[in-house]
């Protein structure tokens, strides 16, 4: 069989997102990731909840299950436990995964079941026409918050790491070069791999990530973290993050200023959960971390699950019935 190309992973269904929606680029990157990895469509399952993002499985030529709002991780858990040989992906949104489905995501991460979770974070409920979501910034104007939302948002990375995630990565929807590799890193991770994708909903939350994503802002406001490498960024790669041991924060510094040298820059250790906690939400003035922020090995639930129980039927019911105290009248 000839190797499949990314086009082979497209279905015959018309893609129905708004023109210009960030979801298109993500779809393409997923298809490309599958092709790059030589994925077997028969052994790949995309499970999603409800939302614009959750339509993705209809467009990928693998097995797919578009389920109900918020519950995709639970369905995916059933799929994976029933057949651990399958590659199981979960596609969800900020509303689907973090409001109605927060509980299931929490437990998938806690168990560390081998799923690849793609969370499309557009900081808004797209499909229901633009209400604020649990990741919306305070002051978000929306049909349900005309005076600006007053709730404090959850950072998906904080949520994931708090739940014990063993893999957390972040990317942006326009990074068509980086996404496929990152998705395959998620796929290769044994355990629950969680990827937050900053996604532009051009209809209801247009350019909300511009400060990070726009071409002119990206170099100074994004940092691509790499394991074992100093945390450097900036157009000239002359900016870095230095650990302030008093505040336990990573502070942006400039090499060569105030006596800062390369030795002062924090080196990324993706296996360190504490460093990851700092990196996922560095606050104003600091860049947004992209790439594999956290990755460590831990027991994997589906392996543990089948490790402690028989994989197939060994006992016949007729003999099971005939154990214990029997009254034999034959």
């Amino acid at each position: 069989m000839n190797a499949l190309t990314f086009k082979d992973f497209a279905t015959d269904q018309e893609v129905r997102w708004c023109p210009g929606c960030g979801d298109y680029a993500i779809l393409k990157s997923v298809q490309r990731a599958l092709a790059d990895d030589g994925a077997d469509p028969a052994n790949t399952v995309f499970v999603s909840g409800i939302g614009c993002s959750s339509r993705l499985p209809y467009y990928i030529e693998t097995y797919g299950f578009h389920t109900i709002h918020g519950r995709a991780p639970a369905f995916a858990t059933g799929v994976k436990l029933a057949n651990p040989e399958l590659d199981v992906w979960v596609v969800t949104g900020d509303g689907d995964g973090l409001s109605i489905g927060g509980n299931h995501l929490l437990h998938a991460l806690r168990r560390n079941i081998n799923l690849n979770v793609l969370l499309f974070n557009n900081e808004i409920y797209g499909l229901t026409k633009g209400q604020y979501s649990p990741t919306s910034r305070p002051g978000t104007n929306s049909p349900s918050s005309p005076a600006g939302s007053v709730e404090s948002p959850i950072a998906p990375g904080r949520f994931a790491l708090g739940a014990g995630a063993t893999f957390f990565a972040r990317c942006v929807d326009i990074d068509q070069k980086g996404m496929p590799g990152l998705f395959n890193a998620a796929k290769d991770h044994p355990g629950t791999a969680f990827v937050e994708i900053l996604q532009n909903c051009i209809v209801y939350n247009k350019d909300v990530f511009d400060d990070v994503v726009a071409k002119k802002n990206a170099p100074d406001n994004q940092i691509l973290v790499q394991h074992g490498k100093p945390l450097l960024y900036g157009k000239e790669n002359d900016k870095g993050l230095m650990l302030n041991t008093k505040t336990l924060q990573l502070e942006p510094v400039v090499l060569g200023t105030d006596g800062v040298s390369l030795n002062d820059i924090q080196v990324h250790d993706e296996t360190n959960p504490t460093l990851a906690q700092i990196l996922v939400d560095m606050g104003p003035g600091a860049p947004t971390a992209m790439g594999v922020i956290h990755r460590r090995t831990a027991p994997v639930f589906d392996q543990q699950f089948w490790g402690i129980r028989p994989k197939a039927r060994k006992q016949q019911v007729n003999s099971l019935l005939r154990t214990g105290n029997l009254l034999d009248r034959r």
Partner: protein
Amino acid sequence: MRASLFGQKIKVKQPLGTKTSHVVRFAGDSGDGIQLQGQQFTVASALAGHDLATLPDFPAEIRAPAGTRYGVSAFQIQFGGERITTPGDAPDVLIAFNPAALVVNLDTLAPHSLVVVDESAFSAQRLKRADLASNPLDDGTLDHHEVVRIDISHMTIEAVKPHGLGTKDSLRCKNFWALGLVLWMFDQPREPTQTWIKSKFGNNEQVRDANLTALDAGHAYGETAELSHILDQERIPEAPLDAVEYRTITGAESLALGLVAAGELADTELMFCSYPITPASSLLHNLVGLEDAGVATFQAEDEIAAVCAAIGSSYAGKLGVTSSSGPGIALKAEAIGLGVATELPLIVVNSQRAGPSTGMPTKTEQSDLYQAVYGRNGDTPLPVVATRSPADCFDAAIEAVRIALRHMTPVILLTDGYIANASELWPLPDLETYPDIETRRPTTEDSGSVFQRNPATLARLWAAPGDERFVHRIGGIEKDIDSGNISYDAANHQSMTNLRTGKIASVADFIDPQTIDQGHTSGLAVVAWGSTYGTIFKAVKDALIAGLNVAHIHIRHISPLPPNLAELLADFDTVLIPELNNGQLATLIRDRLCIPVQQLNKVTGQPLTVTEVRAAIELYATRQEQSAG
């Protein structure tokens, strides 16, 4: 005549009589090992060749303060040398370990019952804890019963002394002492209990031997010493049983076995996904012990996750089963609708309990029939099957799985708290005699769409990931009737709704016709479902003996109803529907068959009694000779 026992005067017990069955109730604190005592007595009764039915009655609190009325745990068994279908309306023997256990059970006792009490438990302090101003042993409360006072605690301590346990541990043996006595009273074997003690306490010789000694001591007390001139030993005739093997079985055990049996018949593995809730958890606990028989159990984070994981498992090719009680089933409703829309097999077991809301978790009710039949958004029909007794759960589970796999649909299986915990004597089935369960798994020749249908069952193919011929997507959005792709087309939605309705209607083409369980073909039909079976069976049996023109028709298939039911009922003058709810089957029968029905409804959290059903039958039934004229 009065005889002396430990310095007190007690009446000489008249023989329990010439009865062919007895109702014995054990009652004490939850810490007294009452349930264990009852279970061991049940096994002994079965091995003695008696038919039987049991009913545990636990307090709602896990460890209520000792000696309180609300902390009383009880276990009731009816056993005898005839067909037994209920645990009995009224005990004729009560074994009470403390004052609270005595007083809370007094009202239920048959007249002139035998009451055996642990006398040492009737101290002033413990009377107070049971809210008693005077001692019921002395104040005339028990004048209409035969009372045997035994210092069970003291006798137990004395008996187990050689084993060198402390007082507290010695006292823990008193349930076996009392059990030994009761086994002697009814001439039942000690061996099963001895075997149980040996295996349970195998690694603690001291405790093992003390319990064995206590059991023997209680037995010897009845036999040799002090009781033989007060109590006559009762030898009940053996029941007229068939020439097969029997065992005792609870509903939860039988349902678990039925599910794995169905898996075996369908040659499919099961994935059981649930979240704990009373009284459904016992099914999970039983299935955990059957994991080498083709089932894996997954404890999910909530009821919703449980049903979703079960559906995910069915999608991946292993039959998903989920189980809960009313509140949890409510949470599952949306996902069950997805199961209907995507046409995946799924078993949803509801162990009903008293509602609404949290209601009375440990008390039984049949009030989730509407929820099962109607409780989803949209026109979302699914088959509903009900089990009638502990042993029947086995066949009911197989039937539910057979329907789910034949038609590719979720099926709701209704049982209840009473059935889950009760036990009965079960003639062991031979699985070899059951027809295989056919599935819609693609054969090696199949190809094309998973939405190609069997014309008789309207079931689509059950193709699972891993099969390269059937790579496909499904979901909750309405699908095109041919391709399965998303469709918002108006006419298509009509067609799909018709298809879903027709598919569930077609279940009726495959189920056995409704039969009359017993009785006549005209007059009064007592139509019922679920756990009222045993009680109604007995009430109708008695009414038939009394010459009433009555029949018992017990329905397994709640939805769709058996196709011949209307015809069957047309010959009766009156239809009476007794239910442990406010009239839910009654509504369904009126709606689906357009016939008038009479109701008998009870929602006290307790099962119907034979007396209650019998009274209702008297109200509506005619004498046989009248109707014949």
